[in-house]
């Protein structure tokens, strides 16, 4: 599904990712853990194609097609979805209007007919229930005035509507109470279908109790320094990131 080879990326002239390798197979869920500032969000943004990050070396391939020359919307068309660590508030753009535009833009990219209003509303309704979102959120401006938890749930809601091939969730757990966390995990798990892949970025092990990963990586200073199974997350929780420093040194 996703293959990242020797990825170097910098922002404003500073190299942040320093030779990162990652292979994610179809249907797998990978967790990426690491300290604040280790480069997790940078990795997510680089995959999604944010233009202020410059890839200086290496490649990112989705199903054997390089993404590097594609604009963010084309990457979305190829099946990438990024759930933002800090979802942006967009006053004046209604969530439902935006999502419909997004769904149809993706369909157009894939050479499909646009969805009619009725089918679209059906999907919205179903996914709203899945995430136990308040109906009114859809008619409000995108993320405007949403609480932290509402914003994160709204990200997963959008992901559920857009049905991507590769989901990248950047600290979706931060700022969630335990009930919201369960809802989010439930939404994510419902999208695990053995084909769709996921990269779950988190600082804490807690989320991984609910979204059980196949593989856990530790990111440090722009590189993956340790890879293991779900038990790696538990060890990190017990010993802290210093434990990896010792192990990697």
């Amino acid at each position, binding site marked *: 599904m996703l293959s990242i080879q020797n990825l170097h990326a910098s922002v404003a002239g500073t190299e942040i990712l320093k030779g990162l390798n990652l292979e994610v197979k179809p249907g797998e869920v990978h967790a990426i853990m690491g300290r604040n500032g280790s480069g997790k969000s940078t990795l997510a943004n680089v995959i*999604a*194609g*944010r*233009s*202020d990050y410059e890839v200086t070396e290496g490649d990112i391939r989705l199903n054997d097609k390089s993404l590097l020359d594609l*604009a*963010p*919307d084309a*990457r*979305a*068309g190829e099946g*990438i*979805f*990024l759930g*933002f660590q800090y*979802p*942006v508030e*967009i*006053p*004046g*753009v209604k969530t439902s209007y*935006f*999502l419909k*535009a*997004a*769904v149809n*833009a*993706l369909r157009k*990219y894939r050479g499909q007919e646009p969805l009619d209003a009725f089918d679209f509303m059906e999907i919205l309704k179903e996914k709203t229930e899945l995430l136990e979102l308040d109906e009114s959120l859809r008619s409000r*401006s995108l993320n405007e005035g949403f609480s932290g938890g509402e914003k994160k749930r709204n990200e997963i809601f*959008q992901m559920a509507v*857009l049905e991507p091939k590769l989901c990248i969730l950047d600290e979706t757990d931060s700022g969630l109470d335990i009930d919201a966390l369960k809802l989010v995990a439930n939404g994510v798990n419902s999208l695990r279908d053995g084909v769709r892949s996921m990269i779950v970025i988190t600082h804490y092990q807690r989320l991984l109790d609910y979204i059980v990963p196949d593989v856990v990586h530790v990111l440090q200073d722009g590189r993956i320094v340790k890879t293991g199974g779900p038990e790696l997350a538990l060890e990190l929780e017990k010993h802290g990131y210093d434990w990896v420093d010792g192990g990697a040194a």
Partner: protein
Amino acid sequence: MSATHLELAVKDGGESCKSKGLRAGCEQQPRPLAAWLAVLDTEGEPKWLANARRNASTAFAQVGLPTRKNEEWRYSEPRIRGLESASFNVTTTAAIPAGINLTDLGIPMLGGRTMVFVDGDFVPSLSSPLADGVQLLPLAGALADDSLQARLSLTGGQETGFDLLNTALFKDGVLVDVPKNVDVSEVFHLIFVNRIPGMATHPRVLVRLGANSRLHLIESRVCTADESLSNSVTQLQVGPGATLHHVATLEGSAGNSRQLEHIAVSVAADGRFRSNLTVIGSSESESEGPSALVRVDLDVDLVGEGAECTLEGLYLGAANDHIDCHTRIDHRVPCCTSRQLYKGILAGKAKAVFNGKVLVHVDAQHSQAQQSNKNLLLSEGALVNTKPQLEIWADDVQCAHGATVGRLDEDALFYMQSRGLPKTEARKLLRVAFANEICSGVRSNPMRAHLEEVLASWLSRVDASLAVTP
């Protein structure tokens, strides 16, 4: 209004010469503005009006048009320089061609009551005046009433040369009188179209709402006449406990035209005034020559305790447009509230000015004033001068103001793109969202729909011109 009413009748060429004061116009000699004052012919007009015109003319001879030295006019000045000596026609004998309709000029049909003026002349066939308790009349026919004298004077005695010109030379306009305790259910729609090149018009609008009345007043002003001047003065008096919702749209798409409107409002105790203003320049990217100046001065006097005003404005400038939006709010007595939000989108080499002044006078304790101006620049060459000003002489007040000038939020663009929207579409959505905040305040559904349409088509024209410019 039926579709046939949209057709402008072929007019008898002599008709417009019947108007008083300006019979000299029948000679059809273009003259400089000052010369028009010199030939002022007030014969047959009521004495009070003849006096008022002569006084204005004398005052104009002293103050002239605003100059660079006048801070409020600094940025407009290059577009009005030498205007006194530019020649204009002030009446026309040109027939209005049949088959032209208002819809083609981009004027929405809103139902309700309509008053239409073309090149300064009242067009009865398109208008639906009222004279039954509530009055909606052509001003020219109502001037025998000398109580209008008081309503003609602008408060503060700070009339500019343009105000004086208007008083001296106005030919017609609209008189609205709503007695107390009347909730006017019909929308009043005033339409001013300027089509003939080289014309100067000075429409005057006088509106008075009695205590506890309500009115929804919409103005559409469209100028397609090159080298023309439209110099309007609109006076709105909101009585105690009354509510006036005023929606005004000015479009100045003609080359080297000047479209000016001074809106002077007074709001009595517990009265409410709500203004939605949309100012649109040209947006023809090709026009490199001198292009339109559109300027609106909106002055609101809060003169009774508990008076409130909400001013929302949107200005859209492209190409070589110059748009000036000035507001001035006087909190003269305690416990008044003012809110202000003006937004601008500028492309090409357009220039805009937002100059918003809020004055809280010394006795005006417990005033609340909020003022905000936000601008979006779409190109390197676009420019905005924003000057929000608070002048506070009372000590117990809540006031806040701010201004921003920026480009589209890159984070928002990336967010939308990452969900699949192409960048052009994401941009468009963000721009529409930016401006719609103002349109959404318009309560007349057809007018709001019209504004949203105007906005969308302006944005796509601008988008197209941005795409061709490297």
